[in-house]
């Protein structure tokens, strides 16, 4: 029963990843793509545990899953920092005047 549960669960996870791959391919912005990659990476940790069940070496594959979840998190954080808007070059050379605020009384 354990093997069949693992096989059916892994197969349905793989099938359900297809719509997210569609979003990665046609996503209008780059953020959609990163989001899809993040979701698939989280699911890969689950699939690693399932593969460990099929090979009867779960104690080893669980460590892989921990490492993969960590890498996925770090990748998402790094990419979101990278896509953050930075100051354009012209603005850096010629700093804009600060917007006027109400004078202090």
């Amino acid at each position, binding site marked *: *029963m354990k093997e069949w549960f693992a096989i059916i669960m892994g197969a349905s996870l793989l099938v359900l990843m297809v719509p997210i791959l569609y979003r990665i391919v046609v996503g209008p912005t780059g953020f959609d793509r990163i989001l899809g990659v993040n979701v698939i990476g989280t699911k890969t940790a689950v699939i690693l545990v399932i593969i460990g069940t099929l090979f009867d070496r779960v104690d080893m594959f669980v460590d892989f899953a921990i490492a993969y979840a960590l890498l996925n998190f770090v990748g998402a*954080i790094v990419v979101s920092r990278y896509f953050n808007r930075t100051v354009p070059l012209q603005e850096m050379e010629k700093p804009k005047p600060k917007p006027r605020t109400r004078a202090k009384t």
Partner: protein
Amino acid sequence: MIELLANSSVSESANSPGWFLVHSIGVGMGILGLVFFLGTAVGMVRFPDFYTRMHAAGKGDTLSTMLMLTGFGLVMMEDFSLSSWLLLLKILGIVLFIFITTPTSSHALMRAAFEDDEMPLGEKDLKKLRKRSRKSTFK
């Protein structure tokens, strides 16, 4: 239930009713996780906006991963030996890690998108989208 579990650990048989209960709880949690992941997949395809897609992906992804991993941890247990407890503890560690990190990463992504001037859809955009979809379906 505790008595059932204790009895099964004494008799060391994997087919006793206590273990059957634990394994069926694990299978049910896994199937519930698949249902939530189905919601994530449908939301990622059908929602019109980046922020709504992020809503579907963030929540459904976290909850489905936690449910599936915990269900697998329960299905994996067959006795009360030390290695089996260690395995369950490691899997619960992954669950805790994902419970902390997935909302964090989606928060960081949302903030990056908002500071990158990606605006959410307003009423006018939604009306336009609805008109376009009506035209494309009826002609």
